[in-house]
């Protein structure tokens, strides 16, 4: 039983890491209706720039600020060069453009920072601590705390600030938002910068767990089943979906993996999410679509 709980808790905490990536997707999808395939690349790029600023001698906080600056610049460029020319195109074209963006970001990242794996040490050891008789990784707890405060901050931002409210208006209806004078392009810039910031945090946590390397892009794809579980438009959904996926994945690997062969982590979340979708087509917290002819 203790083993089961340990696996479950480890899975839940790993799920928090997926949620962090999924959050970035949700932010962009909410505000601009763009399915941002490049989120994984952004996570990698943010982590890469932080590690390199740090390696070039910048102290931790300065490196963090500089990396954030890089993400803001990226957001501005994306808005100006990709989103604005593609406004009013079908969502499919925008999705394709973000795949193109993924290729560009990966290329730029490798060109500037090289393609070797960088070590990243946040100073938190990945050692288990005893808690109610169950061993829990200290690092995972830290990641969960970060994710929790991030979500809290985001919820406050969306509910209490003018910009946050404007973003919610944009998410609800682009045209209605524009008609009451909300500058759409500026909101896009904000939200891309914001999700760049989320990507930075996710990148730091993932990077210190796995090393900052190009495999991070693939890890970030795991955020997709999290998204469909939680619904594309819900911040709470991203967190809950991440928890479910993380726990289910670890439990399946431990208990099912022996039966049908290991390595099922790669596809199990997707199949789980798919089966789930057949029951609830809009995810746990997604908005119900009403279709009219």
């Amino acid at each position: 039983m203790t083993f089961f709980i340990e696996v479950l808790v480890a899975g839940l905490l790993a799920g928090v890491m997926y949620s962090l990536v999924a959050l970035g997707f949700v932010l962009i999808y909410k505000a601009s209706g763009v399915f941002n395939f490049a989120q994984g690349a952004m996570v990698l790029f943010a982590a890469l720039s932080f590690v390199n600023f740090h390696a070039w001698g910048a102290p931790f906080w300065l490196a963090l600020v500089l990396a954030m600056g890089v993400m803001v610049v990226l957001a501005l460029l994306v808005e100006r060069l990709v989103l604005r020319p593609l406004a009013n195109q079908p969502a499919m074209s925008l999705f394709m453009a973000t795949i193109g963006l993924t290729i560009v970001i990966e290329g730029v990242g490798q060109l500037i920072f090289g393609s070797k794996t960088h070590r990243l040490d946040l100073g938190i050891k990945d050692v288990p601590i005893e808690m109610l008789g169950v061993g829990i990784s200290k690092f995972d707890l830290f990641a969960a705390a970060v994710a929790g405060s991030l979500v809290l901050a985001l919820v406050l931002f969306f509910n209490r600030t003018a910009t946050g409210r404007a973003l919610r208006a944009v998410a609800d209806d682009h045209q209605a938002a524009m008609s009451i004078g909300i500058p759409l392009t500026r909101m896009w810039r904000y939200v891309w910068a914001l999700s760049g910031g989320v990507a930075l945090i996710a990148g730091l946590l993932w990077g210190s767990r796995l090393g900052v390397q190009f495999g991070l892009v693939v890890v970030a794809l795991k955020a997709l089943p999290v998204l469909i579980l939680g619904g594309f438009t819900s911040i709470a959904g991203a967190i809950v979906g991440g928890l479910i996926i993380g726990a289910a994945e670890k439990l399946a690997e431990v208990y099912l993996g022996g039966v049908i062969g290991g390595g099922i982590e790669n596809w199990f979340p997707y199949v789980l999410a798919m089966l789930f979708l057949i029951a609830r087509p809009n995810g746990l917290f997604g908005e119900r679509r009403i279709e009219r002819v």
Partner: protein
Amino acid sequence: MFYREASQYKTSYGADQQIFPILQDRMGFLALMAIVFVVVPILGNDYWFNGLLIPFLILALATLGLNILTGFAGQISLGSAGFMGVGAFAAYNFVLRVDGLPILASFVLGALCAAVIGVLFGLACLRIKDFYLIVATLGSQFFIEWALTKFGWLTNYSSSGVITAQKIVILGVTFDTPLRRYLLVLGVVTVMALAAKNMMRGAFGRSCMAVRDMDVAAAVIGIRIFRVKLVAFAVSSFYCGMAGALWAFAYVGTVDPEAFGLERSLQILFMAIIGGLGSVMGSFLGAAFIMLLPIVMNLIGSTVSGQAIDTSVVAHVEQIVYGVLIIWLLVVEPGGLVRLWQVGKEKLRLWPFPR
């Protein structure tokens, strides 16, 4: 003036229903066939067949498959490479385990296997659509990759997980030279492309387009949308499966499941989008563009840089240019390359009058 339908009267149903009802199209198609079946084999060399034409044709076939699903029926898929893998490995097993099965029949059976798997995953489209479907098909991609490496039976317990495709022998003729393999691939692709063109202008194609444009409206006018979507999944996976079988047997010879990874799916999706969604011809244009792009950039890269710059730098710059070009093409011509072709035809129709 050059491209006018005027005064081309149809006097029989047959004439009215042919695939290319306009004389100029017919002539153009025959000329193209003459070039690819006669002129290219005479002029081409082994490098052209092996390095360019065979992979181009096979990827164009896979793109066509995706285009039927995404372009015509509006269901986005990121699993095309997985279905190629199913086709390749199923065809390999049919040849291996069924004695005396003609090789083309095993290709078809392999593609049918892909179609069945496609329908299984397509069942997800019962309830979900749009971007949710992308994730579902992404799941099929990862699942197939995993299954191909996991179950030794599929690769005949080869230790490295790699299969070596058998020789292609049809009616006593061995297709071993690049030229012969080119002609085989070309034959299959031509037949399947014509079939697709025919299918897409008929009842099925039109139902597909209705579902793509608005599925609720399609349901209201009496189209069984779920069946249409599933058939679209089946046909699309069949095309991809056939492309996979050809990839294994007529192109690379030895395949490992890695060849059918997510990268390939994305590449095929790019080909479909750049070429133009919802167009048979666009599949070929897109495939040609994406195939030629790295080669041209390689040439430019090596001439510009000479030996002075590190090769990895050139590779990364190429990657960046590739991504930028894709975004740029989406911005300037969202309809894809085939739109340029249509604009050209319109110009030819009006010439010498300006538009």
